[in-house]
């Protein structure tokens, strides 16, 4: 049979550029490929030769949606080389700024990118015409997240106040205080938001994932913890390289990750939630229960609910931190520059973000490796899609394409960190 | 610092990129000014620029007249205002052409390009009191025939016979019967009594430099020459500092200067 390739429209509302290709043979999906075209930018190559002090500012530029994640990963990894461990208020401030990014990123994804799918709009702007109040409140929520980042970090995108060892300047109580009322309003909205999205029409779907997330004895994981999974993995971050492997496939500039000897795994909000439900605040737990979620969730279509539960958590956590805040005596801790290698992983809004650096005795980077969440999830996304598309093959192409888009958006694939437009290619053989 | 609102009563396209607006102040009162003064004109939403008044000072009740060349965004927005539209006016500002000093003397008026606009109120003032002055000569240079400003009016004045009007263009095609060459080439041919003449010059800075030199060659002293300068202006009233030229504020001390004061300043590069 002649090869027939159906080209469908671009996929929008994902951050980054890519395409989706489905190969159909004999009425069954043979292969689904998430192609990531984001032009390579070679961060790991040009980080070599830079001073350790420059790394957070440079890695922030990997992604405009989650710069804090890259700043946190790199600072912590380098701090391990320099023998720095932050505690007290500096550690809290780092959690605070990360909460800002979680709120910004989750609310952006949930309301600006994902909710329009469920409600049948092209965009949040179009959605605003009928759901003005909801969109406005969501924008305010997002703005509050951004304001945390601007207050602590200087600006929301590529903050300038994060450095190895802490911050350049720490905020005063007076500077943080105005955030409190906004966060409290945001928290109230978040409870409502969880309820609103929980009523969306979700397909039934239970996937069997190996969830991988950080777990910390005392808190919902952001910057610290052990790498654990629901299938028995429980390792220190230092064992990441031994445990996970990245491969390079032809159809993508993002690298694919697997657990050595086991295969695909899934990181991100669903994994974090399912592995750390007990560490959520009572309000967040209750909101989740009322939304019909159990302590674990295997339905990727419900990820939007989980994102908002996490945003709710982040708002409460931010409130807690600000209420207890006392400015530390110094904005940063100085380490001793020495040769060595250090790695770290943090929980970016989209999942585990791993960094490893080797420095020479002048503090110059000689080796850098960064594993972004989207590339870790790519094999899982492809597996899921292969399975979903099978059930949709009878749909008209336009409808099929729309379904695929929606399905891909479940994973909030920040393609620019690995990689925009998703072009759907259906090769029906 | 707050503009008054005026309304466009009439807009006339003079030449390709130059229009004349006749404005009416919103309070309905005539706008009085001296020849050579300017206004700060605001195109609302766009910005404010310095524009000379180009009307007849003795007929202020006929409206406030400005002639504007569209060179950029703000001047473009002002020049393209249409009948009825609002425009902001601050002014009149600056020291204009001293008319009285020329009573009893010959008058030479030299204009280059749009420089004719700020000189027009002076021409009206002189013509309105024609018998107070000796010979009146207008030397005008434009880039090409299509660029000649106020053409109909120039014709009218020419027909009066009591003014000597010479027009030249830098370049022309065959259908131009007038003179070709820069405006300074008109000076040697003009007839006036150099020892008893007041000259008024306006045009691009480089043109004014050469014009002043040509007039000097003809025997007119710098003390008897007046030139109008342009400098960047943000306030028009000596507070913003932008229009400084050495010791002077062009907006406040000028824009019209006697050349014995101006020449030393013009001779310093990038002053």
């Amino acid at each position, binding site marked *: 049979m002649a090869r027939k390739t159906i080209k469908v429209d671009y996929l929008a509302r994902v951050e980054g550029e890519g395409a989706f290709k489905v190969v159909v043979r004999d009425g069954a999906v043979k292969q689904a490929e998430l192609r990531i075209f984001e032009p390579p930018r070679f961060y790991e190559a040009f980080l070599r030769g830079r001073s350790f002090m420059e790394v957070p500012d440079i890695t922030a530029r990997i992604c405009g949606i989650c710069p804090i994640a890259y700043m946190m990963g790199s600072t912590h990894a380098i701090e391990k080389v320099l023998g720095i461990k932050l505690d007290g208020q500096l550690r809290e401030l780092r959690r605070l700024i990360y909460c800002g990014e979680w709120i910004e990123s989750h609310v952006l994804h949930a309301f600006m990118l994902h909710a329009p799918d469920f409600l049948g709009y092209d965009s949040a*702007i179009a959605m605003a015409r009928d759901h003005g109040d909801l969109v406005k409140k969501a924008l305010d929520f997002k703005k509050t997240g951004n304001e945390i980042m601007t207050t602590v970090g200087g600006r929301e995108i590529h903050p300038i106040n994060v*450095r190895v060892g802490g911050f350049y300047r720490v905020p005063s109580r007076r500077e943080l205080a105005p955030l409190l009322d906004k966060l409290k309003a945001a928290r109230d909205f978040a409870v409502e938001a969880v309820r609103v999205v929980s009523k969306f029409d979700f397909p039934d779907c239970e996937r069997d994932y190996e969830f991988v997330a950080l777990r910390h004895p005392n808190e919902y994981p952001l910057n610290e913890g052990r790498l654990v999974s629901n299938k028995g993995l429980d390792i220190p971050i230092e064992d990441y390289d031994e445990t996970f492997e990245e491969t390079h496939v032809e159809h993508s500039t993002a690298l694919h990750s697997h657990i050595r000897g086991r295969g695909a795994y899934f990181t991100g909000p669903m994994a974090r939630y399912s592995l750390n439900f007990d560490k959520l605040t009572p309000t967040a737990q209750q909101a989740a229960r009322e939304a019909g979620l159990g302590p674990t969730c295997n339905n990727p279509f419900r990820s939007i609910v989980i994102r908002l539960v996490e945003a709710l958590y982040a708002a409460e956590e931010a409130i807690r931190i600000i209420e207890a805040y006392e400015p530390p005596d110094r904005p940063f801790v100085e380490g001793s520059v020495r040769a060595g290698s250090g790695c770290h992983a943090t929980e970016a809004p989209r999942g585990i973000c791993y960094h490893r650096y080797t420095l020479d005795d002048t503090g110059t980077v000689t080796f850098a490796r960064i594993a972004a969440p989207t590339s870790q999830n790519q094999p899982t996304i492809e597996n899921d899609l292969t399975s979903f598309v099978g059930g949709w093959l009878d749909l008209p192409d336009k409808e099929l394409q729309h379904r695929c888009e929606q399905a891909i958006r479940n994973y909030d694939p920040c393609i620019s960190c690995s990689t925009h437009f998703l072009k759907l290619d259906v090769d029906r053989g | 610092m707050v503009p008054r609102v005026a309304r466009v009563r009439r807009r006339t396209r003079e030449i390709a990129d130059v229009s004349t607006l006749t404005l009416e102040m919103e309070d309905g009162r005539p706008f009085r000014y001296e020849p050579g003064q300017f206004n700060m004109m605001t195109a609302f939403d766009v910005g404010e620029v310095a524009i000379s008044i180009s009307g007849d000072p003795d007929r202020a009740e006929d409206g406030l007249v400005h002639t504007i060349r569209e060179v950029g965004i703000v001047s473009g927005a002002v020049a393209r205002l249409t009948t009825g539209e609002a425009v902001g006016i601050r002014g009149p500002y600056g020291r204009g052409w001293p008319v009285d000093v020329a009573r009893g003397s010959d008058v030479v008026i030299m204009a280059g390009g749009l420089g004719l606009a700020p000189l027009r109120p002076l021409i009206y003032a002189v013509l309105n009191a024609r018998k107070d002055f000796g010979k009146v000569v207008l030397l005008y240079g434009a880039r090409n025939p299509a660029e000649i400003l106020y053409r109909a009016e120039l014709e009218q004045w020419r027909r009066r016979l009591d003014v000597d009007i010479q027009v030249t263009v830098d370049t022309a095609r065959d259908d131009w019967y007038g003179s070709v060459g820069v405006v300074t080439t008109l000076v040697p041919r003009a007839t006036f009594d150099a020892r008893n003449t007041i000259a008024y010059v306006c045009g691009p800075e480089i043109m004014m430099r050469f014009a002043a030199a040509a007039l000097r060659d003809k025997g007119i002293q710098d003390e008897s020459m007046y030139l109008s300068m342009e400098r960047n202006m943000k306030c028009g009233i000596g507070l913003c500092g932008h229009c400084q030229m050495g010791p002077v504020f062009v907006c406040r001390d000028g824009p019209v200067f006697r050349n014995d004061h101006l020449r030393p300043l013009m001779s310093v590069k990038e002053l």
Partner: protein
Amino acid sequence: MGKKPRLAVWKFASCDGCQLSLLDCEDELLAVAGAVDIAYFPEATRGEIKGKYDVSLVEGSITTAHDAERILDVRTRSRVLITIGACATAGGIQALRNFADVKEFASVVYAHPEYIHTLETSTPIAAHVKVEYELRGCPIDKRQLVEVISAFIAGRRPVTPAHSTCIECKLKGNVCVMVAHGKPCLGPVTHAGCGALCPSYDRGCYGCFGPQETPNTVSLSRQMAALGMSEENLKRIYSTFNAYSEDFRKERERHGS
């Protein structure tokens, strides 16, 4: 005002941060959407109006042959083309490849460099097509973005001064970090726009808005060296997000290859 102008947002090699700035204008976003037709903005909408656009905001640099073609198409479809951010305006951080061997870079990052199709250089949009206006910053400042859009709608010149960051710093009442704390700062040679953020946070500017209108990098470098900056660090400080802008590139070269 007649018909609403049609706005398109395009992405080339970048981190998405600059276009995200538009979504980060939470207070103005709906007003912007009311004032212009957002005709093409894949990051925010799957709706797409085909054809020509009154204004295109272009993010990202040109790093692939495909993108070099695509920008030509964007140009022909746009009445006014505005580049947003350091990538689009100066090549971005990825332009560090312009000083290196791309093959070697690819081999460091990818197991199969042969799968990677990329140009030897990362170049600004203006190196490929005519650009009406450039908005600086890594990332752009969202107030400046709203300013540019508002100015475009009103038909006025946007207020985005090209002078030094120092002026903004002083307008804010900051204490100079270089003079009072001895910290090297690129503020004097850096284009204004950010509101002098870094000095407000007690650190020297690292030049993310690129060179100001008349930068004297030679004199500043001399002073930073006097403050203890090594040649190597002098080279590094000019080698970031605007490394490929002419002024920073030349200064970079003065500090060793």
